[in-house]
């Protein structure tokens, strides 16, 4: 059930799936026709957001729906996992990005998708671990290093860990004060390790995860 289109050609439309047409949710595929562009300019009042670069327009939804429920039930992006449902484990962490059109700036932050209501991501961009990279487009260096450092055992917490680290990387890269040495990021070792302090892992004992994170730090 993977998308046909290239995930990073962001202008492409989302052939949204609704395999189990849950009564409380209906998602309609959208097409980038000229007419729609026009409609959009005038504003249709629809809930619109991006997941991993793909456009999603949700015509109606129960306002109590969380972002995690939507991701897991209505999209093929199942890397965010339900671990606790109360923001205490980090397995559902995604990157949320907001755009300020006046300043032309993007603000990125990680969020527990189990606590984020779907309507609140209107106009936002959501990035999950699949969005960082995948087997088709090539894995992200974070994925490769988690694998290389043996930092994933059962693998259930790993996508959340990866996104938490990615969030810290993105944030650090925006810091103009720092200049990284080639091959490193602007992230410090301590920041890299702290990035996953809210993520639980029951298998590894964290040491290899800390090493994978710190490998990005300078």
């Amino acid at each position, binding site marked *: 059930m993977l998308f046909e289109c290239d995930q990073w050609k962001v202008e492409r439309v989302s052939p949204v799936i609704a395999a189990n047409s849950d009564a409380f949710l209906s998602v309609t595929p959208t097409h980038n026709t000229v007419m729609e562009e026009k409609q959009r300019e005038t504003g249709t*009042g629809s*809930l619109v957001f991006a997941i991993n670069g793909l456009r999603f327009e949700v015509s*109606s939804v129960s306002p109590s729906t969380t972002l995690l429920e939507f991701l897991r039930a209505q999209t093929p992006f199942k890397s965010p996992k339900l671990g606790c449902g*109360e923001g205490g484990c980090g397995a559902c962490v995604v990157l949320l990005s907001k755009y300020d059109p006046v300043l032309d700036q993007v603000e990125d932050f990680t969020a527990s998708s189990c606590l984020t209501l779907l309507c*609140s991501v209107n106009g936002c961009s959501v990035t999950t671990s699949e969005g960082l990279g995948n087997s088709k487009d090539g894995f992200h260096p974070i994925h490769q290093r988690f694998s290389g450092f043996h930092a994933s055992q059962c693998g259930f*917490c790993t996508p959340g860990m990866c996104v938490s680290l990615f969030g810290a990387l993105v944030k650090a890269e925006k810091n103009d004060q720092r200049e990284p040495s080639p091959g490193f990021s602007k992230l410090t070792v301590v920041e890299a390790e702290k990035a996953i*302090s809210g993520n639980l892992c029951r298998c590894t004992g964290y040491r290899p995860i800390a090493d994978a994170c710190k490998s990005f730090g300078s």
Partner: protein
Amino acid sequence: MSRLPVYDHSLEISTFPEFLKREIKSSLLLDSERYSWCKPATAEELQSLLKSIDADSKTRMKLVVGNTGMGYYKELEHYDKYIDLRCVLELSTGASVHILTGTLHEKLALDEFLERPPLDSKSVLLNVKIPNYAAVKNISSEMDSKLLFETYRASLRPLGNALPYLNAAFLAEVSCLKSSGSVVLNKCRVVFGAYGTKHAIRAKEVENFLSGKILTVGVLYEAVKMVKANVVPEDGTPSPAYRSSLAAGYLFDFLFPLIDTSSKIHGGWSGEYCNTSLSEDAEIKQKYSQLDHVQLPTLLTSSEQVLELNHDHHPVGQPIKKIGAALQASGEAVFVDDIPSPTNCLHGSFVHSIKPFARVKDIRFKSKLLPDGVSGLVSVRDIPKGGENRGCTTMLGTESLFADGLTQHAGERLAFVVADTQKHADIASNLVEVDYDIENLEPPILTVEEAVKRSSFFEVPLSLYPKQVGDISKGWAEADHKILSAKIKLGSQYYFYMETQTALAIPDEDNTMVVYSSNQCPEYAHVTIAKCLGIPEHNVRVITRRVGGGFGGKAMKAIPVATACALAAHKFRRPVRTYLNRKTDMIMAGGRHPMEITYNVGFKSNGKVTALQLDILINAGISVDISPLLPRNILSGLKKYDWGALSFDIKLCKTNHSSKTAMRAPGEVQGSYIAETVIEHVASTLSMDVDSARNINFYRYDSLKLFYDVAAGDSAEYTLPSIWNKLAASSSFKQRVEIIKEFNRCKVWKKRGISRVPIVHQVFMRPTTGKVSILSDGSVVVEVGGIELGQGLWTKVKQMAAFGLSSIKCDGVENLLDKVRIIQADTLSLTQGGITAGSTTSESSCESVRLCCEVLVERLAPLKETLQGQMGSVRWDELICKAYTQSLNLSATSHYSPDFNSMQYLNYGAAVSEVEVNLLTGETAILRSDIIYDCGQSLNPAVDLGQIEGAFVQGIGFFMLEEYTTNSDGLVVADGTWTYKIPTIDTIPKQFNVEIHSSGHHRQRVLSSKASGEPPLLLAASVHCATRAAVREARQQLHSWGCMDESYSTFNLEVPATMPAVKELCGLDSVESYIQWEMGRKSRLG
């Protein structure tokens, strides 16, 4: 470094697509009617919204800011309207202090605000103004004064993500009396919160008392006493005395360094904030350092992994990456709940009992109509004709799927609500009403004592009951000293697998059922489902690809989950899946066996134990599960020392608690800990060094043989003494013992402890099946009975398949590793898979695969010889291609069944841990742990390293953090991440060094390898023992202050050694004791 996958941030992905930027520029407003989602931009708009909702009393609304609308107060109710507050201008400007209460604007002082009842659901705290102290400063600037400010927080995790026991903040304006050098506290603020009150408080009595006073120890003493009287948690708050003593400790920590300081507080400082601990002033700094204000790093700072590669059985022994690790990282790996729902799929949620022993008269929904989306309830009445009420099958007994008229423990499955979504099912299961009736029923058995009184036991088959060792009466006769009737109490532990219990059942044609289950023993689930549905076993297929963490919890406890889905699927003739919410999972999981131990020990004056006698009462819960294995396991861990003679009576108590089951190192971890407690007790009785007491009770090989019989193996295999000595050297044990002595002599409020602990852990190999098939292109597919739980079983099996087939010795076999794929366990494709447990499944799965490969190589060998004769050399793919044309059978199945003499063996390891205890808070930081563990010749040292580290940290959880508490009815109350704390990155050792000891050839083992899954968990006792050592130092200090009698060195440190437990032993009144002692000393000095 050069081998790292490249990271170049300029190639980083864009987090915000351009199309969405364009759309935002042309405005993206949500239709508030359509989505019932309003987003007011000003407080005025918000007010009018609230007004309109007020007018319509039927509308239920909820305010949302980011996450707080959900928070950890989970939402299970329906609301008509959501109001998103993030755009309300006034919320971010900070211009004034505002509360919007309904339609009223209010301004309040913070403490006035806190004293009011909580705001109702329609009130909004618009903003809080934090004053700039300089602006309100009204003291005379002529005096040289200085502002000090400090905050404190006591919580289980230094980096947060945990609720505190208490928060404190102190602000003080101090000046120095030039004449005497003493410090005057001009004014101060003393604030405490989160200690079990409705709101934070200002301790005004303390503030008034302290204001204007010259700080002396006497003044501080009064203030501390006053704080204790002021900071009193409400009834029902856990550890109230601990919280009060924290408040006292923090105030002491803040003020004590200021007493008697002769330092001059220079004018240059006045008016400045000092928002970290006291800054530049050298003398004050020194004072603080006496108070041990040296910040420890909160995170892992260094680690070292030492391993030896073994190339004898290439590629076995190589530290290759775990299969699918990158897929797991990107999230493409498919877990059971990631399988897309089939059409018409239903979702289930369990209804569980909240009574320990009661008749269940009725189970029904509160309303007449079925709740939203609900299809119905599945209960014992839905068991089909010919089926039975079976939820679990073990080798030792069975368990029912649902309570049948009578519930026998809180948390028992009563019914399964089935609905169109998981959310609807979960909400509906909370709407179920159950009528209980306890009339004329006996009271439940909730303690092991009660079980003994009522003779409520499970029988342990004789073959499983361990044997007594030596002549106990002779042992007693040899003893110079005796300790009698000492007691230990050990609690439970929850698995906290990240993936909760889950299954998906799909009915298929001709009364068959396919069940995807996250399960350590699909074979047992298979049998159970067939029994429950009353269908032949060949009608059931259980499929398990990967398990998101097992630790024993996905063995017996996963079976009823899979069975309930199958039963519901059978009833509704539709696919049914479930993914348990964390709370339900924690309530139903059972967990590790709690137990109570009473021991008598006899020993010589040199510390050598001559006799050990134990009475152990194990709380097994309501059903037998695998509990009869516990006595044997406990003894396996306990026998790590030579006890001279050993006798024991172990009873398996049947109680009205959820059934306890295996959790990683079940019994062994308790046994190993009991052994350490006995040794510690002996040492403290003799006032001897514990490490020496351990040494003197070490085995010689002949005594090892006496205690462990055939499991002891050859004398060369007894590597523990060499590991023990090697570890002392690699961890600089002796030097650090001296450094710690010096540290403890100098520091008053921090104490360190170090401990070296050995382990012996017996494991048993069990039969399992493997199947290896070679496809026409030369690729290889492998099935094994063992389940990939994250422990790297597939990776080792893959290596073994490549090794096994490479013995055909044709060209290209060196690349066989890339040609092997391990596929999911399927109970019809591969029968007799067995159970993945007990640390040995990786090696037995490997062995069954090796046997398959032998068969295949034997079949291929003649052809290979022929081809080689014809062509000089032959490539693997050519060989296979030819074999296909000749119709060779290229699929082999083997069932590996170990014989009695090789099925059991011992594992050895040792650990040194050093901890630092904060005597003011009871906080324990693990400074360093060094581990050496014998893996034989590791099948994959990277995988085994992961097992060692992971098990050790899980053990830290058991010994230091995790409290799996229940209420008085036995219902689990630690039911989420907020109440149950597993280790996080800030609670593991700051330095973590692991060496895999490679011990050469082991004749009876699978390619000389040994197990690594469970035994290293036992090593975490070293952290507990080190904590004990630090606590003993603290108590000795109390003794030196005259506050504790000679019995200071005899104490019982609980498991887990939580902050309150440690603090209690270090003295809840230690601050007062110290001040009194200090005052006494001063007066003595005149």
